[in-house]
């Protein structure tokens, strides 16, 4: 029994174990790895991905997918930059609003017109990207430094980067919604068996609508942080973010088919992938070997695969052991 419990715990928290091992490795091998500067810069940079991955996590738990998050973040950053002269909050609201608009379109396409999420969000991904380029006139849009808009991305609060606080707040909210609201449980039920959930009398359409809307809004928020952090709206940023987010969600043990998922494990997945990137940079800095960006990609891909395979093995062993009892 204890072994069963241990295996199934390891299966569900495998990502946390991998994360801790990676941090241990970095701490032992590199001098400034756990230094304040490195920690805050990792958190500052990865909080954008964390927000996008949180939205993706909810979408995937319903059995859907949102490919548009990267372009939506780019669009959000451009819109936020354009509105930033009006003030921090207006810039923030505009960026998030742009994201919500894309999310709204996704939600309508998926729930009302019943278009497959993959296709619907692929279309909005292209459209959002095009809109961002149009609005930005195909170049970076500098934000207003006078209005204080850059505070969001660049300043600290209680010693930690504001983006990290925003992401943390979003994850706590996400955790509460998932575990302690009927909509949250409905998200998992829809992903687990949509027909049964409909038969059970849950508002399937509304639940799916909300997750796409939330995903768009969170991507818009990530775009705001992007613009604020780098001082400019970036219409060509965000390429591949959706894949990063999907990878982080999957590494966190959320089933791509829906029905099983965790907010906390998704956060661990984001940190795992972000810190892996960080570790590779440190490795390059040591000068032993020089890994090109291409090699880094290959290594990240392999690492991702290893974690997922390990998790599958562990959870199937855990399940098999559980069945014996």
């Amino acid at each position, binding site marked *: 029994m204890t072994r069963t419990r241990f295996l199934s715990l390891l299966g569900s928290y495998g990502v946390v174990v991998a994360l801790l091992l990676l941090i241990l490795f970095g701490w032992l091998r590199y001098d400034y790895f756990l230094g304040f500067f490195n920690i805050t810069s990792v958190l500052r940079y990865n909080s954008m991905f964390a927000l996008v991955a949180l939205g993706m996590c909810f979408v995937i738990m319903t059995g859907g997918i949102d490919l548009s998050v990267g372009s939506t973040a780019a669009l959000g950053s451009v819109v936020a930059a354009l509105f930033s002269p009006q003030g921090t909050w207006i810039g923030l609201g505009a960026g998030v609003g742009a994201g919500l608009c894309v999310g709204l379109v996704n939600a309508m396409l998926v729930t009302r017109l019943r278009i497959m999420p993959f296709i619907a969000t692929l279309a909005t991904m292209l459209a959002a990207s095009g809109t961002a380029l149009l609005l930005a006139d195909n170049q970076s849009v500098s934000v207003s430094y006078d209005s204080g808009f850059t505070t969001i991305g660049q300043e600290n609060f209680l010693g930690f980067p504001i983006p990290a606080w925003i992401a943390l707040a979003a994850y706590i909210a996400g955790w509460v919604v998932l575990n302690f*609201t*009927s909509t949250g449980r409905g998200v*998992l*039920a829809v992903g687990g*068996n949509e027909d049964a959930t409909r038969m059970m*009398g849950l508002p399937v359409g509304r639940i799916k609508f909300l997750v796409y809307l939330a995903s768009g809004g969170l991507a818009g928020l990530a775009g705001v942080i992007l613009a604020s952090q780098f001082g400019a709206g970036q219409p060509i940023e965000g390429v591949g973010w959706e894949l990063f987010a999907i990878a982080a969600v999957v590494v966190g043990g959320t089933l791509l088919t829906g029905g099983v998922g965790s907010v906390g494990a998704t956060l661990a997945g984001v940190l795992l992938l972000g810190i892996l990137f960080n570790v590779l940079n440190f490795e390059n800095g040591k000068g032993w070997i020089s890994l090109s960006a291409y090699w880094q990609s290959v290594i990240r891909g392999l690492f991702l695969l290893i974690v997922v395979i390990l998790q599958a093995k562990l959870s199937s062993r855990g399940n098999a052991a559980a069945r014996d009892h």
Partner: protein
Amino acid sequence: MDTDNLLSMTGIDKRFAGIPALSAAAFTVARGEVHALIGQNGAGKSTLIKVLTGYHKRDTGDVTFDGKPFEVSSPQQAQANGISTIYQEINLVPYRSLTENICLGREKRRFGLLDWASMHREAEGLLQRFNIRVDVRRPLMEFNTATQQMVAIARAIGFSAKLVIMDEPTSSLDEREVGVLFNVIRQLKQEGVSVVFVSHKLDELYAVCDRVTIMRDGKTVKTARMDKIEKIDLVSSMLGRSIEKAEGHATAFTARDEKNIGKILLSADNLAVGQIVQDVSFNIRSGEIAGFAGLLGAGRTETARLVFGIDRLKAGAMTYGGKTFEPRRPSDAIAAGLGFCTEDRKSEGIVPDMSVAENMMLALMPKLAKSGVIDEKAQREIVEHFIRKLGIKCSGPDQKVRELSGGNQQKVLLGRWLAMNPRLLILDEPTRGIDVGAKGEIQSLIKSLADQGLAVLMISSELEEVIEGADRVFVLRDGISVAEFDRAAATEDALMGAMAHGNAPVVEEAQI
């Protein structure tokens, strides 16, 4: 209107694409009554239930529930208004906990957030009423089917339903679990809850139901008290036969020449797998048409699946051509010379968007390919041969199967298996959903194939098809082969008697 009635449905019509599924159906359920709803496949039971629960919108007719007109447009509305349904395939969410499966849709809240502690308590309490003590925090999929079934019922009761509809709730339960379920039903009844009980197992109806309504061809043909109706009447009402009815010639099967029938090819002894097939024995000789008769859920298709290696045997043994036969997968059975035309042409048979030729060659492909390359010319010849031989009406081998009629689709499937040159062909409902003319053609085709030495195992729900077509008929009842009749002995009376009572004499059982 009778005030004792909880539910009253009258004059219900429902058409799908112009084809009537229900016509003037009427159904009443009294308060605190357990009411059986029975009928053959396609009789309209499911449609009636789905109309009641708002899944389908009725075309005409009135529904009164609890004294008020009942208008709902979705199962959730029906549920909110006191009608809960437990579907045949358990409609729950496997990954989620028992508590969630029981409480989803009416969660308990504290300070606006879910109150897990009290939800777990409620789920535990509901399950304890059925003497089930389990950890309600574990995901549903870790539990056996019976517990899952109980969870579905607990969910229905939790919604304080006045009427609980159970669609074949016992099909996946063992005897002890059925006993528990029946206690639950009796308990519900005592509390004044009405139950609609859909089942094909006649004994169960007598054990737990007060009244029965029998459906046939979208009509409710008979309603009676269980203690006033005999099994044989149930069966004959379902099948639409009066027992005295003289035997006519209703199919295209004609007399067969005994000398075409050879030695025993396949013999199966005491086959069993789970609840649905418990003890089935039969044998087939080459050149013989053996028929499987039985009510829905008697285990006919499941037995065929065992023979074809789709499911693995739990117990029993088979011999084929004198040797032990243990097919582990369909390809083993195919290699041994078996073919299987499934009941569900659409989902298990044809590939609608592929051509006649491609569909026919699917199973033969491995044999026809030379190091992975398909011999086009050989393929063409075979396809054209079977189009001629089976009389398939199509514009040519390249026409999409989707565009053919049901009868011609069936012939393409027959062609698929005949191209393999089989020794034994299993036909599951070979003429279902096929128009009368094509039906006759398929039947004469089956006969002429048997005349050429092919052994045929024919499963059919149409009595006259097995009576007139089969050289021997095996009757299955609740997963047990209860009787065997040769051509002379296979009369409608004999078959219906065996379906209703098993091999026990009719008189003895009727007195119980």
